[in-house]
């Protein structure tokens, strides 16, 4: 096996200039392994694997690439192999130089070697060189990134002592997305979750967070930072107790002077969420048991639905199913007159033909933008609101502005491999 490694290593060319700045891999799921003959003498094997798992996940969170640790396949079939060594090591033609200066190098075909003469440490633990930071850097090379001489870039050639909780910044994300593209995919639903808190002075403060859900996963989206929360996605089961593990179809927040109620819909059923106890109600204060059939709680509304939202202007829930919209009056507890109506009728296109038409993924009212968005696939349409009509009175009520890409508005909502999802 060592003979084979040496032979293969000597045949490998040092990465040539043309390879930097180009995507090294043409597939989206890559395997990796910390090779047995290349364990570090400084950290436990479990710690090393945990750190590498995190390093790969960090790249997954900002690109369409996914990484999975493969402990079974023959070594030749592993896309990215990692190992530690000193001096002449692992059949590599480039020796390490001892403690100091070079801490690692990466080869185009996917091998990463770490100089075990360096004092590598786990993240946020004392002096030494953060193995996590070095691993993220070297994986960047394997993926095709060159050194980048920008303060704050993970691809700087020299090691900078780790700041607490380093992450991939905006430009590093764009660099890798320049090679592999951005992240896409349909969403199950998107919503702003509202909660009321009391400030230190006793004032009621209303806070919100934005959530994107896709099947059994979700992301918290930080509007101020134009990215998702570090470490997302998270399993729905972890963050939203009581909801189906496969996710939901819709979320509705009925919010008025008299009512403040949150509902999740899936299939023909729906749940009411108890935000104080952070779980769904099994029985709410009104004595209703959940899950409950949509047709019982909202007479006249068929399930399953595509999506829904509550419009505070007219106190109606708008349920979307296929090409139709069912307007449900909360006060009357029944469908509005003339419901259902065609989506194209209630939300006409400003540009003819530029309309989702049917089968929406999400109807999302954003408090950040103070606007309603209809989302389908990789596109979204902004619904003309008060602000737009103030500037141009001729715009029809609830008309749709031309569609744009979801990726242009909400950035870096990327999946990770299922094995990395806790």
């Amino acid at each position, binding site marked *: 096996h060592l003979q084979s490694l040496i032979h293969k290593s000597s045949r490998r060319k040092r990465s040539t200039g043309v390879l930097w700045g180009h995507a090294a891999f043409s597939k989206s799921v890559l395997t990796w392994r910390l090779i047995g003959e290349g364990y570090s003498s400084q950290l436990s094997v479990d710690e090393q694997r945990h750190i590498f798992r995190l390093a790969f996940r960090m790249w997954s969170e900002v690109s369409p690439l996914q990484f999975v640790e493969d402990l079974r396949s023959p070594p030749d079939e592993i896309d990215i192999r990692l190992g530690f060594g000193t001096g002449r090591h692992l059949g590599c033609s*480039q020796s390490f130089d001892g403690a100091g200066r070079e801490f*690692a190098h990466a080869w185009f075909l996917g091998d990463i070697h770490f100089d075990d003469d360096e004092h590598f440490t786990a993240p946020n633990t*004392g002096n030494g060189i953060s193995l996590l930071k070095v691993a993220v850097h070297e994986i960047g090379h394997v993926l095709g990134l060159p050194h980048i001489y920008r303060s704050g870039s993970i691809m700087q050639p020299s090691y900078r002592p780790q700041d607490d909780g380093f992450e991939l910044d905006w430009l590093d994300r764009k660099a890798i997305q320049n090679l592999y593209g951005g992240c896409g995919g349909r969403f199950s639903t998107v919503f702003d979750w509202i909660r009321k808190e009391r400030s230190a002075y006793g004032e009621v403060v209303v806070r919100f967070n934005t959530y994107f859900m896709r099947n059994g996963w979700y992301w918290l989206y930080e509007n101020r930072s134009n990215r998702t929360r570090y470490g997302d996605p998270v399993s729905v089961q972890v963050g939203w107790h009581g909801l189906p593990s496969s996710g939901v179809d819709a979320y509705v927040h009925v919010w008025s002077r008299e009512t403040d109620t949150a509902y999740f819909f899936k299939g023909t059923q729906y749940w009411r969420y108890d935000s104080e106890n952070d779980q769904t109600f099994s029985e709410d204060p009104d004595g209703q048991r959940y899950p409950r059939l949509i047709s019982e709680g909202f007479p006249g509304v068929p399930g399953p639905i595509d999506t829904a939202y509550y419009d505070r202007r007219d106190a109606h829930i708008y349920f979307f199913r296929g090409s139709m919209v069912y307007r449900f009056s909360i006060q009357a507890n029944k469908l509005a007159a003339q419901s259902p109506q065609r989506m194209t009728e209630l939300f006409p296109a400003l540009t003819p033909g530029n309309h989702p038409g049917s089968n929406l993924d999400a109807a999302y009212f954003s408090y950040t933008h103070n606007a309603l968005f209809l989302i389908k696939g990789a596109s979204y349409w902004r619904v003309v609101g008060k602000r737009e009509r103030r500037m141009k009175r001729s715009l029809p009520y609830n008309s749709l502005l031309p569609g744009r890409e979801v990726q242009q508005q909400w950035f870096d909502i990327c999946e990770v491999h299922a094995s990395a999802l806790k």
Partner: protein
Amino acid sequence: EKVFHSRDHSDIETSSEHLAELITDTDTAQHFLFKYGFMRSLTWESTRSPVVNTETNSDVFLEDTLSFVQKHSSLSRSGPAEHTLESPDFTRALLEFQRVSGLPVTGVFDDTTKVAMNKPRCGVPDKEEDPIENIETSIITENLNETSEIFNTTATPQTNDTDVQNGTSDMIETAPQR
């Protein structure tokens, strides 16, 4: 075992045999600049071709280095000004290294540059060796590095519009932790 006494191994001792050679003078600085792609060759008046191949061979590199050092050591002892070690290529490479490293661009191998060269770094060259392919590398690398200058500011944060649908209280986005 490498000897240590602290719980976190932070005082781990490394024998002198395992220490990387420090960059202390222009000789070692030239080797550094050559190794990481800032210089295409080590000598500027040597009749012998430098090793520029895509398979890095540290033994051949060492042999060239030694012959280079021997040649220039004898010259420097004789001391004619026109045979100084600071060739134009070296100076050019040094300037480039200082520029990309954010150091004062002096073209002189000063203490600040020495410190920077001795810092822990990645073993991947900053610039590749093939002069033909290097053009494409330079363009791509420059593009990536230019992008960082264009996008000098962080992404414009979204502002919370307080004109909520029916004008209720200000909405504040919570800042979460990983």
